[in-house]
């Protein structure tokens, strides 16, 4: 089992969305994983919502750390 | 060991040298075993006994299971517990060698098989009869091991043994203070209990013809081992007091202890494990002094280091670089002196060891009353020829995968296929070959159905 590979895939998805200027707007965690909603900061593209379903615990840590980082930058 | 002075107290010297582990020793030892995964001890065992498994079973109190694990992998498991050079095999591979002390695997194996001997629990059942028959010539470790496995596969097995008792080397050739005869005979019983017929006092080629075997059985396994010590080819070899080590040990092992060696001066010719067995037996029979006479030096001797150490502990003397030239009688037909010549080591010979060469004018005499020759064993060449098998000076050629000889109906295992110059054959190796031979026969026969 190489769970790390799944994490890398999920991390890449998160990074790509972040690089595209998306921010995390909601997180729903349930029995099936973490469902993280990304939306562009850009006002014109507000209707383009991307939801990632994250399976690995490392990804669940990762997006939280990214979220905090963004907050710190903002403040 | 005490120096015996009467026949009565000779016996004590032939009790097993190494004591059984005490129950607390067993518990401490099994608790120390790490239960390695993919364990090197198992890989180092020629029969691949699952050592961690049987040790764990002793620890859990599953003694029958422990004995089963051992005997399943090695039908000579009780013998091997006592005679295996464990420091070169399982114990030598134990990972604890690097951390503390290796587990006493041989002694634990002995503990488990002792339980089986004492409790008479049947460990194995014969297989469903498959209608096929196999004759096995020789009931030593290779033959018995093949017989046990074939019986479990469902073959009808008949074993021919020329001696009075079955077991071969284990019954007759290993000194009793290392391996009591009862251990070997228990292993024979285990094989017989699976319905294997063992005809003792029946020599193939004499009491039963080779042709009969070839006609009456679906397969034949030749597991006759090796024979007596070769003649030295020097004058006086026929004198009284000059013995063959194989025959000498056989008598001791069979319980024929004599008081006629008490106080005698003895010489053993050779320095292999058999020579050491003969020397230590002589000492235990009361010989005043025992010298081992070897034409090469200490470095070339083939005995295991622990055997050599054991001999030194018994007070055996070593005459290195010495070769007997003739035995001289006392005028009454009994050996009294041995003429020897000193040797020196020359160039490397075919065996990879330095060739011993005579030192000119170095002859000298040793006063001796007993000589035991232990310079190797001759082969049963005529029997092998009678089967018409390809061989190299009595070493039967086999396919290393199938143990089939030049006659596909005849298989061979044990010392009879054991080559020159690669040390001494081990019981455990013979047992494994017997197992593999049985498996090969099973596979061949099944593929024909």
């Amino acid at each position, binding site marked *: 089992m190489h769970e790390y590979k799944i994490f890398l895939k999920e991390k890449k998805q998160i990074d790509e969305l972040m690089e595209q200027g998306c921010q995390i707007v909601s997180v729903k965690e349930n029995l099936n994983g973490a469902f993280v909603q990304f939306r562009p900061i850009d006002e014109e593209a507000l209707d383009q919502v991307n939801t990632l379903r994250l399976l690995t615990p490392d990804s669940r*840590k990762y997006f*939280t750390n990214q979220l*905090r980082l963004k907050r710190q930058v903002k403040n | 060991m005490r120096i015996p002075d009467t026949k009565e107290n000779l016996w004590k010297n032939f009790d097993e040298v190494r004591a059984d582990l005490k129950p607390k020793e067993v518990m401490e030892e099994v608790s120390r075993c*790490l239960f*390695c*995964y993919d*364990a090197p001890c198992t890989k180092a065992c020629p029969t691949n006994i699952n050592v961690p498994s049987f040790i764990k079973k002793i620890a859990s109190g599953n003694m029958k299971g422990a004995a089963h694990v051992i005997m399943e992998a090695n039908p000579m498991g009780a013998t091997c517990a006592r005679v295996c050079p464990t420091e070169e095999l399982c114990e030598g591979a134990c990972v604890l060698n690097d951390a503390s002390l290796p587990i006493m695997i041989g002694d634990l194996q002995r503990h488990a098989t002792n339980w089986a001997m004492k409790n008479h629990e049947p460990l194995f059942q014969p297989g469903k009869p498959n209608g096929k028959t196999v004759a096995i010539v020789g009931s030593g470790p290779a033959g018995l091991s093949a017989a046990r496995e074939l019986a479990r596969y469902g073959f009808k097995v008949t074993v021919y043994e020329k001696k009075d008792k079955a077991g071969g080397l284990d019954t007759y050739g290993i000194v009793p203070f290392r391996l009591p005869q009862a251990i070997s005979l228990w292993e024979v019983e285990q094989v017989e209990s699976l319905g294997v017929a063992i005809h003792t006092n029946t020599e193939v080629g004499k009491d039963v013809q080779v042709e009969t075997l070839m006609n009456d059985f679906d397969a034949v396994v030749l597991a006759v081992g090796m024979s007596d010590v070769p003649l030295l080819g020097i004058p006086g070899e026929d004198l009284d007091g000059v013995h063959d080590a194989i025959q000498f040990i056989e008598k001791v092992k069979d319980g024929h202890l004599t008081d006629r060696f008490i106080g005698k001066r003895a010489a053993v010719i050779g320095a292999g494990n058999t020579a050491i067995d003969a020397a230590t037996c002589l000492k235990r029979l009361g010989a005043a002094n025992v010298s081992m006479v070897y034409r090469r030096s200490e470095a070339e001797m083939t005995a295991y280091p622990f055997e050599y150490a054991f001999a030194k502990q018994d007070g055996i003397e070593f005459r290195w670089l010495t070769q007997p030239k003739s035995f001289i009688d006392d005028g009454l037909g009994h050996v009294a002196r041995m003429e020897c010549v000193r040797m020196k080591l020359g160039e490397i010979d075919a065996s990879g060891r330095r060739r011993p060469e005579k030192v000119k004018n170095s002859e000298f005499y040793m006063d001796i009353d007993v000589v035991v020759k232990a310079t190797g064993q001759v082969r049963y060449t005529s029997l092998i020829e009678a089967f018409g098998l390809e061989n190299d000076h009595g070493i039967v050629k086999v396919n290393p995968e199938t143990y089939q000889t030049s006659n596909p109906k005849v298989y061979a295992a044990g010392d009879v296929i054991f080559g020159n110059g690669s040390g001494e054959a081990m019981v455990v190796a013979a047992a494994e070959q017997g197992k593999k031979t049985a498996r090969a026969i099973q596979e061949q026969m099944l593929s024909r159905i």
Partner: protein
Amino acid sequence: MADLSINFAGIKSMNPFWLASGPPTNSGYQVQRAFEAGWGGAVWKTLGDPIVNVTSRFSALHYNGQRVAGFNNIELITDRPLDVNLREIAETKKKFPKQVIIASLMVEPVQEKWHEIVKKVEDVGVDGLELNFGCPHGMAERGMGSASGQVPELVEKQTSWAKEAAETPVIVKLTPNITDITATAYAASQGGADAISLINTINSLMGIDLDTWNTIPNVAGKGTHGGYCGPAVKPIALSMVGECARQTDSNIPISGIGGIGTWRDAAEFMLMGATGLQVCTAAMHHGFRIVEDMIDGLNNYLDEKGLASVMDLVGRSVPKYRDWGDLDLNHRVVARINQDQCIHCNKCHIACEDGAHQCIEMYTDKNGKPALKVREEDCVGCNLCSIVCPVDGAIDMIEKPGEEPMTWNERQALLNTL
């Protein structure tokens, strides 16, 4: 030489090592031998209405050839009349005025009964009282011991009854046979207890004889549950001590009990908040002489740490004992195998493969030798491999640089802002 003396709820003791109430403190003869051996105090075997005992009474868990990993008893409180015990307490106290004697008490949950026994034992000069609300067997069926110790109201009430009559400090001994020990610890302090001691023994059945199908131990073919103690219970005791010690609403002194057998165990209990210590099973296993190394070892340890007094240890680890939600999720360690120490038993491989995250690979190195390697990216740092590894130093858990710390509580708070 550090100062090993303690002040436990006002009771001064030359060292923190007391014998717990139990078979070793059954008589003056034993307690006096213990004091000669160096014990700082003894909690006398529980006094109350004399009972009768059964035979046999003890049993033990032996593990891989090691005797007494755990210990179980179905013995009750003292079976000797109170006046005999009191006479021996007085005599012992006279011979050993510097050593601490605590009277362990157990009577029916009746106010007068508590008043009566407290007065009687204080009259012979004990240094303190320990209320036995803990024994899980026998006495509990008569409404005493853990039967009362499991009901916070009863703990509080009986403590206050004892306190009404007591002039010496009152220690309440708690039973671990309860879901949350802090509830009864709180009740004890509400009842006015000066200190608590924990843990008493844990409900247990040692085993079944596979030949007779009798319980172990058995009394004429029948058995009953007993109280479990000894090395095996130490982690349970330590956690319960820690739970009580980290309660912010109470600073009640704690006497730590449960599997203490060496100075190391002692130091751990003190670091986790115990001011005093009580020992029973180890003394039953090896005799009173074990206290010598407890004292010597603790002394050397304090010197090595540069601490002048054993009291400096008390509670130092308590702030480190937290709720799971306070642990840093970003902290990361991984296993690393030191090839030069590894003996190739492959225990780490099979443990990881079957019991953890399948990240230790067996391979053959360039010299053809077997070797093991951790795939660090898949290692979750669970410690299993280093736990099963039989060679100290062969597997290290290496800290890996990670993100800034973030606890679960912080993470949830962050997500709640969305």
